[in-house]
């Protein structure tokens, strides 16, 4: 079967010369499919029938000249088919005009057989390289388009799944809260009514129940908070606040908890800090989360809470502990949803794994940013930076 045969078109009005050229080409490669035409009209007919891989074109034709054909051929969009002009004139002007119109090369009559062979071979090689590149480019584009389509499909599916998950989590959390409230209030009725009549053991067990119900309620609130923040990023109650005072208050609440573990709390406040707009409850929530983590993961030493001016119009709030620290590879995971890092040798502290993700949403809702630094075994620093939007 003849596949990939090279098609060459000769446009030449001299029958003897046509035959000579055909002979040279056929001798060069028996796979060449050589066709001929003797005039502009025949040339047009030939290319309408089938486009060749190479055209050898005589300048002087009986009806219209080779330049006319060449100009029209290029104008019709056949940019990638090489045309080699064949002429007896050897005229420099003709050569220049031919090149301007898009000829790839020139062959002068009388012809040298070796010269023709080399030039034809060169043009065909060039054509093949161009064709190959065009093919590869086209195939790549097709592939990219398909992959893109597939990616879009997958993305849409993921979005749907994510939404389903959100709805599910939200529904479950709400459903859990209702019975929990019932248990909690019933328990406090028992606890309150029968204070004097309870034995020490009973009291202890009731206390354990109460603590764990509180914990469960906190976890469920975390989940709900996160879902809320995700679905409604706005909705902050912004008001001017004294950040240092707010931090001082939060830290005081933590003192008994820290003292229980023999941890010292130290504060260092930026003296010159203006009041600025923030959501008091939300920022307290972030701070509580930081402090909770610091206490949870520290066995000794102190926890330093610091505010400092940062990059001009921002303030940086940091909580620095001397606890177990976080391995470097785990740092990027910290603020992701449901991520909890377990430290070897320490029990896995309970939590939803949502605390830091919620904190991140809150800080970003204030147009701030959140981060952590840590040296494993030496301690961690969690910080957030807020813009001081004074007067707004």
């Amino acid at each position: 079967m003849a596949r990939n045969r090279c098609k060459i078109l000769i446009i030449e009005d001299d029958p003897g010369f046509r035959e000579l050229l055909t002979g040279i080409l056929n001798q060069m490669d028996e796979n060449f499919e050589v066709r001929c035409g003797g005039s502009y009209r025949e040339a047009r007919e030939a290319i309408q029938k089938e486009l060749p891989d190479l055209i050898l074109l005589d300048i002087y034709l009986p009806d219209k000249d080779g330049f006319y054909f060449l100009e029209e051929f290029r104008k019709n969009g056949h940019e990638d088919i090489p045309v080699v002009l064949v002429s007896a004139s050897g005229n420099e002007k003709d050569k220049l005009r031919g090149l301007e119109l898009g000829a790839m090369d020139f062959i002068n009559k009388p012809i040298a057989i070796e010269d023709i062979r080399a030039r034809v071979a060169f043009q065909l090689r060039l054509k093949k390289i161009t064709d190959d590149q065009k093919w590869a480019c086209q195939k790549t584009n097709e592939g990219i388009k398909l992959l893109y389509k597939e990616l879009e499909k997958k993305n849409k599916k993921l979005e749907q799944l994510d939404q389903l998950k959100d709805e599910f989590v939200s529904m479950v959390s709400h459903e859990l809260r209702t019975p929990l409230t019932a248990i909690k209030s019933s328990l406090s009725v028992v606890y309150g009514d029968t204070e004097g009549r309870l034995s020490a053991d009973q009291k202890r067990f009731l206390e354990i129940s109460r603590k764990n119900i509180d914990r469960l309620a906190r976890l469920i609130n975390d989940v709900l908070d996160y879902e809320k923040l995700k679905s409604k990023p706005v909705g902050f109650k912004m008001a001017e606040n004294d950040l240092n005072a707010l931090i001082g208050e939060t830290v005081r609440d933590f003192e008994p908890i820290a003292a229980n573990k023999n941890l010292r709390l130290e504060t260092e406040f930026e003296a010159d800090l203006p009041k600025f707009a923030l959501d008091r409850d939300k920022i307290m929530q972030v701070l509580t989360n930081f402090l909770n983590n610091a206490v949870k993961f520290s066995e000794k030493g102190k926890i330093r809470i610091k505010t400092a001016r940062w990059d001009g119009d921002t303030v940086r709030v940091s909580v620095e502990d001397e606890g177990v620290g976080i391995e470097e590879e785990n740092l990027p995971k910290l603020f992701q949803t449901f991520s909890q890092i377990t430290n070897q040798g320490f029990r896995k502290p309970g939590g939803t794994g949502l605390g830091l993700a919620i904190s991140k949403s809150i800080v970003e809702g204030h147009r701030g940013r959140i981060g952590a630094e840590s040296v494993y075994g030496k301690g961690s620093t969690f910080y957030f930076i807020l813009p001081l939007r004074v007067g707004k």
Partner: protein
Amino acid sequence: MRNRPKVLIIDDSEADRILLHEAIKKAGLEVEVQTARSGEEGVKKANELRPEAIIVLDTLMPGMNGFEACKKIKEMDQDSKVILCTGVVDAVDAAKARAAGADDYCVKTDDYEAVVGAIKSLITS
């Protein structure tokens, strides 16, 4: 009656072999499908199936990869029809496929749409 055209799937991934076979059936192509799990096995089978098989070749395989296998198959028989397919499109790979003599180069997506399309157009050509 004319014999059904043969399609030879050469892919080291069993999942791809099965799923592509299914996609061909689903598309309603009246072909006889055979498979090979490596470039080496594929070249041997391609030789046995000569001359009418359409060969679908995965580019990335341990041992003899798709480009090498394509070259070998084309050396045995210039007229064999080879489709090289890939999981990731890459202009360099496309150029390599062309240089290896592939008749088509396409991407394997979940539904194998492009591969099945390429087989179809080679059958009708």
